[in-house]
Structure formats: structure tokens, C-alpha cells
């Protein structure tokens, strides 16, 4: 039972305590349930801060390891193995940070079946944290698949009018990718006789060198993992589940979906595809860059055409995550570090946008751009926060988005793996397009003459709870935007270690 007291075990499974408490509560005590969930997630965030304080940024290796034999039967070297390194620590923190914020945002938005909602939400946090911490492929797969279940319910029960369709589409799409990864995981497990990722990384080069796993098979394995992660990211052309899921999901669900779940895909590329299949990754880099570039331009163009604000932000995610993919497969220090930071940035800015859209939707029950207009005059606080989040999302210098995108483009321009500066060059157009659709949206909603809704509705500005929900995100937008060095310092050693193992 010693493993229960490991910091990372506590961090991963702490929300379960809240789930147990909530299970025994009367479903009528809605506000008590909310408080329990809130306190649980805040305490989890506290644990994450404790973990962070013990994290040594200058060490590129896995840290705070909790490693215990789990299933030890012939051919099944499965460990209970959690650990964190520079590649994952920021995403773990992001998860622990966004969960209480999301729960706070549901205070008045979720009135129906609060008990179930909070249980699913806390279970989702367990799954997400586990995905970022698991260092055993079997365990990773369990967490990875498990996140689908609570998210499926969050969309399907508390979502919009087409929620059932969106929930099933989300579930089946994601599962379609992960089942191929399952086979690849099993194949790796059979060949290397372990599911333990660090051990696998030691044994794989020999298998590649001796031809026990040929280059062709390596490519197949790479593609099987890619199937799972590319759907999750989502990379063009596998993105079609995303707008449905985002639009139908309740606000808190969208925040977590955009903020963390999509990052599980990009994190997967970083943690598995690149180190496990280095040759295939280098070979595939130009192709992934191509798809990423198409995604950037396509996502931006489609965003521009949206009439629904939430859908606009959803498609902008396709574009932004294209940048992350481009950075990852630049396979150089700038690109990868920028990509990891951009994962966090996207979580912050898109999270804030979804939160803010949710707040106005709660009052007006519409998200159509054309019925708004002139909102700034009536709701200045809302307008200011929205402006900051929008500017952060479009990558204005001084805010976080710029730092990430700039570093990524820098990496992609000089990338040997991608081999051509054209991808970066075309992607840069995406930054400009982002400015167009974001500012266009902002102008239609907040400036100009008062629209239909603005006219007829008694619109209230944000209350203290709502401000408290968004302000922490805004602080980080400025922090990363103005002084990103501490964040890069955390990443750098681990990124360097990752890249040094590549045969470039």
C-alpha cells in the first residue's frame, strides 16, 4: 500500500476521494455537491503544486517515480508506473489548474443532475492526469481509453440539442484510432517483452538495428499510434468530430476538451511517436508538416465562415493545433519547446474563450454572432476579458500565443526534418488569418450598433464568481507572454534529451 502515498499517485487519484464523498450525498443537495467537487479539485491543484515544488527542472529524466509490479505473469511485465518529466509537467499542471476553473464555471450553468456531473468531471480529471503521468503502455492505454467514458457522458447528458449524436461520434471516432494503437502496443509488448516505456526505449534500438523490427514495420507502428493521436489532436482531415463535440458540449466540457483532451493527442506524439519510432518519425515529418499546414489554413478559413461563436473557436482549435503539430515535427529544440508551450497556451486562451462564451450564453441562450453587437457598452468587464483572450488566441505580441507560435515558426523554418521552409512560410499566413476571424468576430459582437439580443435583453455584466473564473487564466496569458523564460527552462532539458536520441 506504500504506492498510495507516492506524490504522483496522490495527484492522479485524489479526485476519487471526492467522487466517493459525492456518491454518498443526496442528489438534492446541489450546492453542497458543488462545494465538495470544488474543494476536491482545489486540493488536487494543491497536490500538483506540491509535486511541482519537488520537480527538478534541470533534470531531463523521469522524476518522482512511483513504480510497482502490477501484473507479473509470463510475458506480461506490467508495472504500475507513474513519473513526470519536463515534457509532461506543464500539461499535468494545466490539467490540475483548469479543472477547478471549469467546475467553478458550472456553478449556475449546470442545474440538472449535478451529482452525476461532478462525479464524471472528477473521474475525467483522474483519467487525464493519468494519461500524462503513465510510463507503462498498458497503464497509459487504460487511462487514455478511460477519459472517453466521462467525456461521453458530459457531452451526451448535459450537451446541446444534438448531444447524443455528438457524444457517440466523439466516442466512436476516438475509439477507432485507439484500437489500432492497442494492436501496436501489444506488438511492441510482444517484441520487447515489456510495456514499460523507459525499458522499451532501451530495447528498441537493438531490435531496429538487427532488423527484428524492420523499417516497414516501424512505419506501420508509427502510423497505428498516429491514428490514435491524430484523431485526438485533431489533425486535418480527421477533425470532423471536433466541431460537433465542442458545440454540443456544456461549457465546462468544452474547456476541458479544448484545454486538456486535445493535448493528450499532441502529447502522445511527443511521448510515444517520436522517441519510440525515431526513423519513422523523421521520415514522416514532411508529411505531418504538410497536413499540419493544411490544417492551419483550413481551420482558419472555416473559422471565418462560422455564424456560431463556439463553432468559430472550435475550428480555430484545428488551426492552432496545426501549429503544435508543425512544431513537434520540426524535431528541433525551438519547434518542440514552442509546441509544448503552445499546448499550454491554447489551453489557456481557448479555455478562456469557451468560458466567456458560456457565460454570455447562459444569459441569452444563443451564440449566433449576428444577433449580438455593441456589447462592449453594456458589459465592459466581459468585453475586456474577451478582448484579452481573443488577442491571446490570435497571437498578439506581449501575450502568450505569440511566444508559442513565433517559436514554432522559428523551429519549422530551420527544420532539417521537414526539409523545406515553405511549410512555415504558408503557416505564417495562418497567423494573419487568425487575426482576421478573431477580430471580425470581436467587432461584430462587441462593437458597432446594438444587435437584436443586446437590444431586447437585460444583459448583466460578469459577477465576481465569473471574473474569478477567468482572471487566473488571464494572469498566465500575460506571464507567458511577457516573461516565458521560466516555462522554457522547465522544458529545455527534457526536450534536449528527447531530440538527442534522434538519428538526425
Amino acid at each position, binding site marked *: 500500500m506504500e504506492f498510495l502515498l507516492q506524490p504522483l499517485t496522490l495527484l492522479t487519484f485524489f479526485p476519487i476521494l471526492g467522487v466517493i464523498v459525492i456518491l454518498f450525498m443526496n442528489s438534492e443537495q446541489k450546492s453542497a455537491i458543488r462545494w465538495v467537487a470544488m474543494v476536491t479539485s482545489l486540493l488536487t491543484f494543491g497536490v500538483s503544486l506540491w509535486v511541482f515544488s519537488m520537480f527538478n527542472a534541470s533534470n531531463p529524466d523521469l522524476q518522482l517515480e512511483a513504480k510497482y509490479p*502490477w501484473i507479473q505473469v509470463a510475458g506480461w511485465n506490467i508495472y504500475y508506473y507513474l513519473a513526470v518529466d519536463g515534457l509532461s509537467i506543464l500539461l499535468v499542471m494545466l490539467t490540475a489548474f483548469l479543472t477547478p476553473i471549469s467546475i467553478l464555471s458550472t456553478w449556475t450553468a449546470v442545474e440538472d443532475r449535478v451529482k452525476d456531473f461532478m462525479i464524471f468531471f472528477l473521474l475525467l480529471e483522474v483519467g487525464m492526469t493519468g494519461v500524462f503521468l503513465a510510463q507503462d503502455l498498458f497503464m497509459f492505454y487504460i487511462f487514455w481509453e478511460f477519459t472517453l467514458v466521462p467525456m461521453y*457522458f458530459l457531452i*451526451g447528458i448535459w450537451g446541446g440539442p444534438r448531444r*447524443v449524436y455528438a457524444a457517440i461520434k466523439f*466516442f466512436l471516432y476516438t475509439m477507432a484510432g485507439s484500437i489500432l494503437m492497442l494492436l501496436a502496443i501489444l*506488438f511492441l509488448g*510482444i517484441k520487447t517483452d515489456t510495456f514499460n516505456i523507459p525499458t522499451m526505449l532501451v530495447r528498441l534500438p537493438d531490435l531496429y538495428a538487427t532488423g527484428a523490427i524492420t523499417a516497414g514495420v516501424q512505419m506501420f507502428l508509427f502510423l497505428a499510434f498516429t491514428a490514435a493521436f491524430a484523431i485526438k489532436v485533431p489533425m486535418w482531415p480527421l477533425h470532423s468530430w471536433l466541431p460537433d463535440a465542442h458545440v454540443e458540449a456544456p461549457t465546462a466540457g468544452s474547456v476541458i476538451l479544448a484545454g486538456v483532451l486535445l493535448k493528450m493527442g499532441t502529447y502522445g506524439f511527443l511521448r510515444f511517436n517520436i522517441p519510440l519510432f525515431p526513423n519513422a518519425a523523421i521520415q514522416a515529418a514532411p508529411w505531418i508538416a504538410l497536413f499540419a499546414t493544411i490544417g492551419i489554413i483550413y481551420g482558419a478559413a472555416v473559422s471565418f465562415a462560422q455564424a456560431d461563436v463556439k463553432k468559430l473557436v472550435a475550428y480555430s482549435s484545428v488551426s492552432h493545433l496545426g501549429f503544435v503539430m508543425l512544431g513537434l515535427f520540426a524535431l528541433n529544440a525551438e519547434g518542440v519547446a514552442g509546441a509544448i508551450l503552445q499546448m499550454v497556451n491554447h489551453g489557456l486562451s481557448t479555455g478562456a474563450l469557451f468560458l466567456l462564451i458560456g457565460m454570455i450564453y447562459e444569459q441569452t441562450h444563443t451564440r449566433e454572432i449576428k444577433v449580438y453587437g455593441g456589447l462592449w457598452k453594456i458589459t465592459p468587464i466581459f468585453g475586456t476579458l474577451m478582448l484579452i483572450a481573443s488577442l491571446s488566441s490570435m497571437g498578439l505580441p506581449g501575450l502568450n500565443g505569440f511566444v508559442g507560435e513565433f517559436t514554432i515558426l522559428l523551429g519549422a523554418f530551420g527544420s532539417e526534418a521537414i526539409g523545406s521552409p515553405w511549410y512555415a512560410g504558408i503557416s505564417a499566413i495562418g497567423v494573419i488569418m487568425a487575426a482576421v476571424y478573431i477580430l471580425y468576430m470581436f467587432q461584430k459582437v462587441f462593437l458597432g450598433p446594438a444587435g437584436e439580443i443586446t437590444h431586447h435583453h437585460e444583459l448583466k455584466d460578469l459577477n465576481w464568481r465569473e471574473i474569478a473564473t477567468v482572471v487566473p487564466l488571464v494572469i498566465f496569458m500575460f506571464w507567458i507572454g511577457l516573461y516565458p523564460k521560466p516555462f522554457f527552462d522547465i522544458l529545455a532539458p527534457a526536450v534536449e534529451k528527447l531530440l538527442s536520441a534522434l538519428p538526425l
Partner: protein
Amino acid sequence: MTQPQFIDFYTLMPFLIVTVWACLLLLVDLFIPKDRKGITAVLAALGLVGALTYSVTQVGLASRGFNSMVVLDGFSTFANILLLASGLLGIALSYGYNNRMGINRSEYYTLMLFSVSGMMLMAQATDLIIVFLALELLSIPLYVLAAISRKRDAEEAGVKYFLLGAFASGFVVYGTALIFGATGSTNLADIFFAASSGTSSLLLTIGAALLLVGFGFKVAAVPFHMWTPDVYQGAPTAVTAFMAAGAKIAGFVALFRVFATAFPALSADLTDILWALSALTMIVGNLSAISQTNIKRLFAYSAIAHAGYILMAFVPYGNSEIAPTAIAAGLFYLAAYAVTNFGSWGVVIALETAEGKGLEISDYAGLAKKYPALAIAMTIFMLSFIGFPPTLGMVGKFYLFRSALAGGFPGLAIIGVVTSLISAYYYLRVVVNMYMKEGDPVVEREAWLGFTTTFTAIVTVVVSLVPQFLFLLASTAVLK
């Protein structure tokens, strides 16, 4: 002929306990008043508990009995424990259900015991004659049980099951005859030597293929599955639950035993046949399930599909390195399947009304609001059937796919995962109805029923998190 020794009886002890107890129960039952037939159920359960306890003491032991016609080994003990537990869960599901449906007849539980004893004999048989005896002993009570409610559907189910079952038994007998003709023996070990020493004879291969037909019928593999949906739907639901687990376990156990111990030499011919059977079963089972609206038929097709997954792991049985894994994976999955199966049928029973209503998937609408615990349990079972964590079904499928990949059948594994994806669609329909639709379901609350669904749901989740012991038990159940 030597006199029977103690070791002969010891080898078969759990089986003997169940059989003798069933005979006694027939007599005792005469003195139990008609309105208190619940006592018979309790007595039957006690017999199974006794045999189960004895079986547990036999873990790790091995012996042979009756001139090597039966054997006690890790494999048979694993199967015996599983079958006895299935019998107990079957009785637990029947207890209240039979009262409600007005089929609380005394012979019900006796028949169940006889069927369990037949299944156990199947697991211990090392001679084709005993295999046939066991097959009949397990099947005939099931034919009667299927028709026991004497409703029109049930009678149709009983007759259908009987006719097709008798036909399948014919295949087994004929196969046995051909094998005897080819090798001069019905003993599995002798057949093995004859088959691997001599040049492969066509007669033997045909005989083995005929046996495969017979077993394929019992496990509901395509194309021998035609009876399954009608029988599952028509039979009383508690019987269906018992049959779905018990007959499947017995069929697979016999298939594993006979093929792995007698026919490894024939794998060159049989592997392709098994491959095709497995692929067909997975594809047809899952595709047919999509369009079902009746929950009993849905689960019937799902039962067919799961037979395909287990067969998939067994395809590389001829490879002596993989065979132990393949069998361990099969046994592990049978255990996972049995637990999930009883749980899900328990939920079906809870919603079924005396008039036979409450069996459409749409009848599950709104279950989560009114009976959250039952809906959670059902969700766990559905996830387990799909193969989603954190459930036993996921660990089990992991094991099955690993066996297929290690055996060098990636194509089959891909068919397996793709059909799993298809299955997610129809299992999720049940979840969608429970959680995302409005409705007003009516649920019967019965103590033993509640216990069964709760217990199996907990086992499905908890054992998936600490599966070590089940792994060990399954992997020691290797056939030599």
C-alpha cells in the same frame, strides 16, 4: 479391468458431488410443499457451494482417473470453479424471477445441477466417449429448461434448441467414429500419438472438422449460430443467462482440450478453418447485433460475437509456444465474459415484467434517473463487453489480441478490433437510452437479483484493477 480406486473418485469429486446432490434433490423435493419451492433453490445452491469449496482445494493438483478417461489438472479446476460459480449465479438470478414468472417448479433447479455436472465432466474428459456423454448430460437439461415456462416462444425455443442440438451431437458422434477409425482409439493422448507419428490421414482431419462443427454449435460460432437468437429470446431469461455462460464455457473448454491435446499435428489444415470461423463469427455477430431492438436478441448476437473473439485467440493453437498463452487467454476471457454476462442478464431480468414486457432497448430510457445504481451497473457491463477500461472485458480482450498477434495473425486481430468498434455502437445504444433519453422504466427489486448485479459489477471493475491472481490461475491452466 481394474477396480475403481480412490484416486478415480477423487479426480471427479466436484462432479460427483453435484451429480449425487442433484439425484438426492429429486427425492428431497417430493417433501417440499408446492408453495415453498424456494427451499429447493437454496438446497441446490448449497450443493454447488460444497462442490465449489472442494474444487478450490484441488487448485494446483493433478491426477488421472478411470483409465485416463478423465483428468484433474489446472485447466479442469479453473473450468470447474468457473462453471460452479456460473451455476450459483444462475440460481441467484432464477430465485425471484421464477416466482414472478410462475415457473417455480422443483425440477428447475435439479435440471440446472445436472447441466452443471455435464459441463464439469466436459472440462475433465480426456476421452471422446466421455466428451460425448458430457455433451448430452449438459445439453438435455438445457433443452428442457429452455421450454420450462411452456409459453409459445419458450416451446419454440426448446424444440429448436433440441433439434439443432441433436443434429450437432450427431456431428460429434460421427466425428468420433471417424477418428476412431483413423487412429484406433478414442483417448485423446492415443489420438495425439497416432496423429503425430503417422502420415496425416484425411479420415482424421474430417473427424476433427466434424467435432469442430459440434463444438461450434455449442459455443454459437458462425455459421452454426442460427439457433442462438431465437433460443436466447424465447427461453426464460434466467435460463438464457445460465446457458449463455455455461454452455459457452463448456463448449470452449472441450474445444481447447480436444484440439490442443489431440490435434496439434493437424494444425496445418485446421488453422485456416479456425481463422475463417473466428473472422466470420466476429463479423456476422457484431453486424447482426446493430439492427436489434430487443435486448435479449441484442445480447444473443453479442454472445455470438464474443465466441468469435475467444476463437480468435485459439487460432494459433498449433504453435506449441503460443498454445499455452492462447488457452490461458481464452480461459481468462471466459471468466471475464461469464461475470459480465450474468450481470447484464441480471439487469435484463430486473426490467422484465411478468407479461414479458420491458425487453425492448427503448424500455431502458430514463433508467439512470430512476435507478442510478442499476444504470451504473449496466454501463459497467456494456463497457466490459466493448472492452473498455476499467473493466475485466478490457483486460480480457487485451489478452486475446495479444495471443492472436503473438501467434502471427495480425489480420485477424485487426478484424477483431474493428468489430469491437462496431460493437461499441450498439452497446452504447443501451447507455444512451439509460442516460440520455427520458422515460419511466419499471424495475423489480429482488434481493438476490440486486446482489448478483452489484456483485458482478464490483467484480468486473475490481478484478480488472488487480487481475494478477486470475492471470496466474489461467496461465497455470496449461494443457500438456
